[in-house]
């Protein structure tokens, strides 16, 4: 009798645990979806800085999202969600860049479907704007990794403290590197037609 009761308690405990696990999972899925909604565009922009080829870039974005999903259950809030996302995205981007080293393709493969809709009414304005954007991205892609990371974080409007947390350096160091990276970007943009 006691055995039966203990066994049934065990079953209830197991069922309770299973419910808790599935609830946790649902909670994680919700959290993950909200992260993608909020930071998805930033992740896809960040992927541009590491991968110029559209197909490979899509794969990189999926890899970053997968890495975030795998890391999410272990996120204890030691840093902001944005810092957490950018850390994972940059680290995954670094691994991706070191594994695949294709010839530099400065966005020549940017297809029509990749181009966001531009609200500018005049075709000349649109063309000039697209040209400028292509020049900027191409220049970012040509920078060394450390400059590239700084520039992307700056363009994503992260504070010095957040940049320092993402990169693992001091805030003073961020300021110095950011100046260097901006100068390098200006030079790279100037060098490009």
């Amino acid at each position, binding site marked *: 009798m006691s055995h039966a009761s203990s066994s049934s308690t065990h079953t209830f405990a197991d069922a309770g645990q299973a419910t808790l696990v599935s609830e946790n999972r649902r909670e994680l899925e919700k959290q993950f979806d909200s992260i993608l909604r909020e930071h998805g565009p930033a992740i896809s922009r960040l992927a541009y800085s590491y991968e110029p080829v559209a197909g490979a870039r899509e794969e990189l974005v*999926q890899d970053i999202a997968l890495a975030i999903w795998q890391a999410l259950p272990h996120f204890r809030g030691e840093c902001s969600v944005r810092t957490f996302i950018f850390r994972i995205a940059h680290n995954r981007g*670094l691994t991706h860049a070191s594994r695949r080293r294709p010839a530099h393709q400065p966005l020549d493969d940017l297809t029509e479907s990749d181009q966001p809709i531009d609200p500018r009414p005049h075709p000349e304005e649109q063309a000039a704007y697209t040209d400028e954007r292509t020049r900027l991205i191409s220049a970012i892609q040509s920078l060394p990794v450390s400059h590239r990371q700084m520039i992307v974080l700056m363009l994503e409007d992260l504070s010095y403290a957040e940049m320092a947390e993402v990169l693992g350096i001091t805030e003073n160091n961020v300021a110095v590197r950011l100046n260097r990276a901006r100068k390098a970007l200006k030079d790279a943009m100037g060098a490009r037609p």
Partner: protein
Amino acid sequence: MTMIEDRELEAWRERWRSVAEPLPEIHRKIKRQNNWFVISNVVALCGLVAALSFAAWAVHKQPSGMRIAWAIGLSVMVFVCAGYRIWLQRGTWRAESQSTRAFVELWHRRVMAKLRMLRMGFYLIPAWIVFCSVVAAANWSVIGPDVHAHPRDWLVVVGVVVLMVAAAFLKLAWYRRRKLRELSEVKRLLEELSG
């Protein structure tokens, strides 16, 4: 920072933010990855149970000292592999949520550890050949008559073993070259990040 520079930054930001591609389908990949994770772990668990059962069955069938030593060796190897798998699965997420600098430093340490393990592999293969030769020589009274009775079968066995050893050497050499390339890449990254 001057106003002109700030305007320049705002212009860059505006262009940068207009580069938003629609996110690719991610949930399917995650589901596939989760399924693959479960399947690979079930397969690994089945492999572990099968290897241990085979070792137990072999000892039960012929409980000689040699068989027992072999079964212990196999069991230890299986548990070491299982431990390594668990460590790998637990460790992979940690690295990526660290700062870039910590991640690259850890990456460097891991590549170095892999290279050390590969070097050990290069020593282990000849050591294993020597060990097998010694065991065969010590048991020649048992093996010898069988070799004389079925020389072709034994030739095939030796041929397969030689091919396997050669393949293992080639694989190790290829993997080492890959890791050395990775090491130089990681060193370059570390230098760049420290600069």
